[in-house]
């Protein structure tokens, strides 16, 4: 299968290793990885801030890059939800409405794609360590991805998955919310990180790097012990 990767801007610049891990995993499974050039942002920041005209400007170009793609797999549940769920709303009644519907239909979040579309859970990965999984809200509630990442992690050799308390509670990132309401966002991060610390894991894994930026950012400043955050693709690419 020819799989087109959608690597959102912040992963492109801050966490390129996530994209590299996705390429590795998909190629290992024998798929051809396509990366349409010129990708920038999905438009979520202006969209969530209420500036839908500006969001449409960005989204419309981004959408056109994937016109010929067979399948689009996103590195982030949140940006993936933009493609899958919010583009159709953003372009409702606009000339691009049909194109948005087409993109939505062929868009997948990475872990869900592996499990539900490809039917794979065991990727032959090996990762030694205690891990807890944080559900990114967009992946969980907009896309309904809950079981897939857990199934994938459980199949990794050497990995012990320990569920934290309230894994489904938001980490407090929320895009521009994190800087517009830093006091609330940080309080939420504190609660989340305390749940993580209680599990005594060494790693926190998620299918959304934006949540991990929040969690790692808070832990690095406040945690009594070192905990490393990893995108699920990085774990699945380990050998």
């Amino acid at each position: 299968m020819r799989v087109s990767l959608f690597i959102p801007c912040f992963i492109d610049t801050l966490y390129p290793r996530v994209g590299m891990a996705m390429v590795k995993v998909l190629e290992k499974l024998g798929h051809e990885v396509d990366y349409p050039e010129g990708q920038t942002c999905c438009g979520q920041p202006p969209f969530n801030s209420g500036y839908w005209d500006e969001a449409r400007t960005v989204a419309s170009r981004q959408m056109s890059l994937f016109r010929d793609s067979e399948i689009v797999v996103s590195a982030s549940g949140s940006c993936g939800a933009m493609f899958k769920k919010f583009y159709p709303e953003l372009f409702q009644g606009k000339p691009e409405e049909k194109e948005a519907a087409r993109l939505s239909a062929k868009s997948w979040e990475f872990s869900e794609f592996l499990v539900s579309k490809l039917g794979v859970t065991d990727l032959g990965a090996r990762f030694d360590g205690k891990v807890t999984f944080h559900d990114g809200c967009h992946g969980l509630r907009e896309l309904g991805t809950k079981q897939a990442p857990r199934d994938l992690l459980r199949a990794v050799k050497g990995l012990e998955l320990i569920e934290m308390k309230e894994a489904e509670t938001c980490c407090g990132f929320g895009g521009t919310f994190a800087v517009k309401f830093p006091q609330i966002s940080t309080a939420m991060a504190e609660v989340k990180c305390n749940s993580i610390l209680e599990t005594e894991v060494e790693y926190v894994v998620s299918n959304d790097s934006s949540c991990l930026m929040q969690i790692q950012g808070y832990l690095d400043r406040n945690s009594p012990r070192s905990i490393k955050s990893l995108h699920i693709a990085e774990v699945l690419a380990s050998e």
Partner: protein
Amino acid sequence: MSESAIDPKTQFHADADVTTADTDRRAFVRKALGGYKTTRAKTESAFTDWEQAREAASAIKYEGVNHLDTILTQFETNFTARGGKVFWASNSQEARDYILGLCAEKGVKSIVKSKAMTSEEIHLNAALEEKGYGVIESDLGEFIQQLKKEAPYHFVFPCMHLKREEISALFEKEIGSAKTDSPEELTMIARRFMRRHYLEADMGISGANFIIADTGMISITENEGNARLTCAHPRIHVALVGIEKVLPRLADLALFLPMLATGGTGQNMTCYNSMYAGPRQEGESDGPEEFHVVLLDNHRTRLLADPEQRDALHCIRCGACLNVCPIFKNIGGHAYGTTYQGPIGSVITPHFKGLQDWKHLSGASSLCGACTEACPVKIDIHHHLLHNRRNAMKQKPVWWEKLLWQGFAWMMNRPRLYSLAIRIAPWMQKLHPIVFGSVLDPARGWTQTRDLPEMEPQSFSAWMKARKEGRK
């Protein structure tokens, strides 16, 4: 923290600064709501199919809310046929005037109330007290908040933020009771104090959980029995009810009573469920001589006029969205500065009190969607927060934000410029420590409390490009 001279957004930020720093209170509130999810999950499983029940409830509320014109008049016809009186109040002033008028006309001296958020909404107590009427709240939580001269913290659990010792100290100070650590004793103190007032009161004021159109009744559900006493004893009763509380049929209660209890407290059913069909009829031994229902619009019709967010009128005020909201749990109920706190409050308040003044509540959300997931009547709560943001900016964009996002869009649509920028950015980041966390730090909102990841010298796109070229 409610009414203030400074604008609601500034007040909100200031209050949230204080409440989020209060780790002790936050932990207390979180613990109080901690058991909710598990209890509720157990109750949900008593439904044959909870998701179907939600669908059904949503459909029934849709029917009611979209036929208010006929359904409310059907209620009025049936209710007045048995001697009840219905007053249509288009705003809070009209509702207050009607109730104050009744008090004057009927020679009312003292009033006992059961829990009614509509009364908070129209600031009824203040209006009654100003005219010299004695008013006593009979719901324990509301009573405590009344003594504390503080608005409810949560529209279902008004004093959930208070610890036992604080309540004891409050009782000691306000009604002279002895210090105690026992919740039972605290309840008894309040009960002994209230009993006298039930007997003295000429007027009872309540809200209603449901207006039932086909039989012309109101339904009140509660756990303390105080609403029953409030409705039964005084000679005049007034129920102040929002027009959205309609259910087409009495039979609908079979779904809505357990659903409200499940969503609200995780109970199968609340302890007391009463239906009132009007004043005391001939041959009946008790009940009020007069029964008035005040149907309150107070800008609910503005929500009705918005097809996108009309489903917010489906709300049965169970409070489930507050109970699961990480924002509510961390900032607490008072920071909102609204009658209706939490996610649903953030959705409806801009419609009730003005979008521009209250849009910040829609912004103060990570849009995590826990509220929508918990809502028994399937209101699309967190997406409406998103819609409020859009509507606010469409109506009145903030010039510098508009400029910022236009610039953002311009740049994001120029991939070459974007590549150049992300090549320079890691070098720029090396200069960041000079201003890090200070007022000059452009990332201050983040860096004051959190670290930033280091930018990689090679982006994924650059890596991919090099890889492709290497293959050629």
